[in-house]
């Protein structure tokens, strides 16, 4: 507690850095994965390469990916762009599959009924498929949110500052309060952002509450 009160401003700064690194990849991977997932669910030919490709991407360990990405995209090793790109890739690796499953869970009869009542494919996507895929999509998004927040800390070993810096600093200077603070705050940030996802989904899908209350 003593350590924390003396280092409050540093911890606050690292917390802010952590947020700046975790939120963009979560949003970006959602924006990229929804159309890709819909494509994968709609076509057999695209399904296998998309899902295998993203699955293999997910297998690549994070630290090596943080080092390979600057070499591919020409970023500098310690730039936030490296982190955001790597974490967006991981996010997509999980979410494309989740979105494909979500769109596949929309019953075929509903789709036919929507087409029969005159929905264009574009209108059907926004008004029928996306709302019905929402709950399954949300559960994947929550997994991505929590794992992104935890993965951001790995960047600390290559010198990208985040709550992970509390781990590397604490280890080098032999201060366990620093590491414990970092672990607790990372878990808290993960749960807070997870709650934001759930809350956002509740606002975007108000009918779910009506259904569960009925």
């Amino acid at each position, binding site marked *: 507690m003593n350590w924390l009160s003396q280092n409050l401003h540093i911890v606050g700064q690292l917390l802010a850095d952590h947020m700046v690194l975790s939120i963009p990849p979560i949003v970006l991977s959602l924006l990229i994965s929804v159309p890709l997932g819909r494509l994968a*669910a*709609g076509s*057999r030919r695209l*399904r296998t390469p998309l899902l295998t490709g993203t*699955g*293999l991407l*997910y*297998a*690549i*360990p*994070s*630290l*090596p*990916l943080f*080092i*390979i990405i600057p*070499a591919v995209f020409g970023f500098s*090793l310690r730039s936030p762009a490296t982190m955001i790109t790597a974490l967006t890739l991981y996010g997509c690796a999980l979410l494309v599959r989740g979105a494909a*499953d979500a*769109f*596949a869970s*929309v019953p*075929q009869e509903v*789709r036919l009924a929507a*087409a029969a009542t005159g929905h264009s*494919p574009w209108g059907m996507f926004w008004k029928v498929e996306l709302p019905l895929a929402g709950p399954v999509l949300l559960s994947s998004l929550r*997994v991505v949110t*929590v*794992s992104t*927040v*935890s993965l951001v*800390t*790995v960047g*600390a*070993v*290559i010198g990208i500052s985040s*709550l*992970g810096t509390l*781990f*590397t600093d*604490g*280890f080098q200077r*032999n201060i*366990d309060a620093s*590491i*414990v603070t*970092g*672990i607790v705050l*990372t*878990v808290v940030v*993960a*749960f807070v952002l997870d709650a934001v996802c759930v809350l956002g989904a509740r606002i975007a899908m108000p009918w779910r509450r009506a259904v569960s209350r009925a």
Partner: protein
Amino acid sequence: MNLFLEAVQWLLDPANWAGPNALGLRILEHIGFSAVVVLVAAAIGIPAGTLIGHTGRGRGAIIAITGGARALPTLGLLTIFGLWLGIGLEAPFLALLVLALPPVLAGAYAGVESVDRATVGAARAIGLTERQILMGVELPLAAPVIIGGLRSAALQVISTATLAAYISDTGLGRPIFSGLKTQQYDMMLGGSILVALLALLVELCFQLVQSAAARRAEPHRTQTPASERITA
């Protein structure tokens, strides 16, 4: 792309494959260490998860453990165990075990739990003992999901074993961290490529084993059931 050429040159340099710092040795360390962790996690997690799936007791605990574990930062666990246990293999072993257990537990639990209760009831009706039901019916049917759990555990462990070099200087993380210290990008990138290849290889092996287990569990099932496709 020039960076990649240099990394490949570094990887192909015979000097890096000889002596006490030989890359072959690092690869063996990495695989050996990861394998031990996954085996220990399997020895604890599969019986425990199977028991919970079979009896249905302790379900809430499994969900809480697997959900919470995802939020735990791996580097945080490694460094705190490193401080508490000192430099050596104990700290990374314990940290990796903590990370490998939840997916193994969840896989064993979900696999056994997903076995059709009617099938279990039929096995009981024809006179199989509880032990026979577990070994002969539930486990083979649950095998694909159990192997899926082992697969995510193995990938998690290989990934984190790379980070373990930060506290204990073993495995394929070593060239990455020495490269970081001495600003040698070819060494860092070469090490990274090796770990990525190793992870992909393990992933592919598990995919093969998992689909073999799935064919054995459900021989009549087609590759993609119609319900998973959209025809619009």
